[in-house]
């Protein structure tokens, strides 16, 4: 099997798993308990929090553990909206956010909030001029993702953070795809709140963080016990949190090295696909993109067929194709960068890890060439195109 869907989730590495293991059968104490048996669990959680914070230049007590990226996004946006409702009810986001942000914004619209969805350019970069123009006296929150989960485009977070600061508006960023993969500094970038998820960086599923800058007053999202300084109730997921911390520590140490390796492999993959498969386009910014993301559209074919055939060759990939999500519309991100429906339907996302090899990429490109040719040979759109050319 060749696993090229690391934006969907990653493998828990042995190094991380070894550190998690004791917290199931041996160190099972509730970390919040008073007896000394709980001490080791609590200090492991503290250590994890420190590692999670250091990766983004935050203070340890600015990190709150959650159940994942979607929870963090929901918490940040809903709680910021609620606490500021007397100041205003206007939120700014972009057209290419993850659904955890988009659907939360749509939920708030039903509650009487107004949301401006800022457009992106053809590479998927948020239009800063449009963003600045969207700011109003009653704007209470700007939420823009650090990097896009489909096409990998990295957003101008420094500029957006500066803009938010200048206007005194809270700035939240969904960094689920970026955290641990590209450098993030919450102070340099003026980030007030940040969401991240463990399973995108070799930690287990079901654990995430929310960074909340000291002094940002937002309420609880999960009510109950006094965990996480009373801001996020629920018994601490010790094993998950330890895994998150371990993965964050490794990510910090190896960020540059891993990014360099992945970028080289990514660019090799992109070059081969674009050079060797005609009528193919790379989506997203060629340079300002996540080190592990390659995203293509192959004209005249449809993404789901492509994925099934790749799977039959042992290659795990994804598309953003309408069919797989059960909706008929192609990806909102691809439409937002201006692609027509029929091109947007033929999309493929390949997301690498440092564990992928050049041989795997070569095999994938060879199979891709065969599969695309086969699907085109049975496509009426290709038939029309060829006849028109003749």
């Amino acid at each position, binding site marked *: 099997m060749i696993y090229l869907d690391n934006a969907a989730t990653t493998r828990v590495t042995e190094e991380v798993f070894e550190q998690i293991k004791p917290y199931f059968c041996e160190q099972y104490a509730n970390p919040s308990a008073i007896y000394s048996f709980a001490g080791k669990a609590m200090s492991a959680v503290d250590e994890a929090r420190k590692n999670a914070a250091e990766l983004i230049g935050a203070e340890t007590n600015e990190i709150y553990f959650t159940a994942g990226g979607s929870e963090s996004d929901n918490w940040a946006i809903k709680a910021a909206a609620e606490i500021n409702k007397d100041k205003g009810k206007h939120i700014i986001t972009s057209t290419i956010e993850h659904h955890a942000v988009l659907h939360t914004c749509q939920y708030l619209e039903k509650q009487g909030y107004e949301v401006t969805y800022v457009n992106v350019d053809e590479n998927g970069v948020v239009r800063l001029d449009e963003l600045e123009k969207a700011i109003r006296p009653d704007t209470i929150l700007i939420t823009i993702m650090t990097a896009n989960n489909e096409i990998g485009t990295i957003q101008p977070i420094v500029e957006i953070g500066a803009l938010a600061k200048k206007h005194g508006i809270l700035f939240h960023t969904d960094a689920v795809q970026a955290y641990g993969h590209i450098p993030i500094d919450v102070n340099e970038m003026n980030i007030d709140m940040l969401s991240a998820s463990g399973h995108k960086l070799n930690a287990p599923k079901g654990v995430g963080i929310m960074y909340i800058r000291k002094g940002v007053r937002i309420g609880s999202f999960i009510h109950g016990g006094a965990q996480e300084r009373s801001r996020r109730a629920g018994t601490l997921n010790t094993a998950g949190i330890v895994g998150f911390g371990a993965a964050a520590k490794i990510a910090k140490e190896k960020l540059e090295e891993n990014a360099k390796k992945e970028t080289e492999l990514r660019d090799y993959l992109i070059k081969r696909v674009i050079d060797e498969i005609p009528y193919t386009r790379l989506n997203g910014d060629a340079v300002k993109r996540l080190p592990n993301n390659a995203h293509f559209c192959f004209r005249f074919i*449809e993404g789901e*067929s492509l994925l099934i055939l790749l799977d*039959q060759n042992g290659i795990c990939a994804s598309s953003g194709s309408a069919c797989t999500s*059960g909706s008929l*519309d192609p990806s909102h991100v691809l439409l937002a960068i201006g692609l027509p*429906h029929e091109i947007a339907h033929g999309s493929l996302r390949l997301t690498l890890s440092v564990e992928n090899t050049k041989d795997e990429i070569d095999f994938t490109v060879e199979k891709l060439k065969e599969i695309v040719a086969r699907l085109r040979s049975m*496509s*009426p*759109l290709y038939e029309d195109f060829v006849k028109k050319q003749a």
Partner: protein
Amino acid sequence: MYSEKVMDHFNNPRNVGEIENPSGVGTVGNAKCGDIMRMYLDIDDNGIIREAKFKTFGCGAAVATSSMATELVKGKTIQEALQVTNKAVMEALDGLPPVKVHCSLLAEEAIHAALWDYAEKNNIKIEGLQKPVNDIEERLEEEEQ
């Protein structure tokens, strides 16, 4: 998510291709929903469908339903071919996931579109055949807009 039969027809689609100078050809679907099917029919003087071929742009279910539809109409009379409904196509494939039912409707529509073309070319009226609404023209207009 797909039955074995669907996978079989997707992996080894029957009757892929074109027919030169077909008795009837019809294209249905549109780019918006991501499925376009084109069906070619060769119909003899006795009104028997001698050959059926297809080309499809679409998901696994779209390919499989096109393939099955061509198999089901081959050797049939025009009236028999009109009985090949989306339900018949789905049943022959041992079912489709709910979100893919529209593919079987498209397959039925493709048969009708090809028969409509045949009727128009021969200036005849086929009892029980309505003009297919979902034709390629919509797609072409969309592109031009």
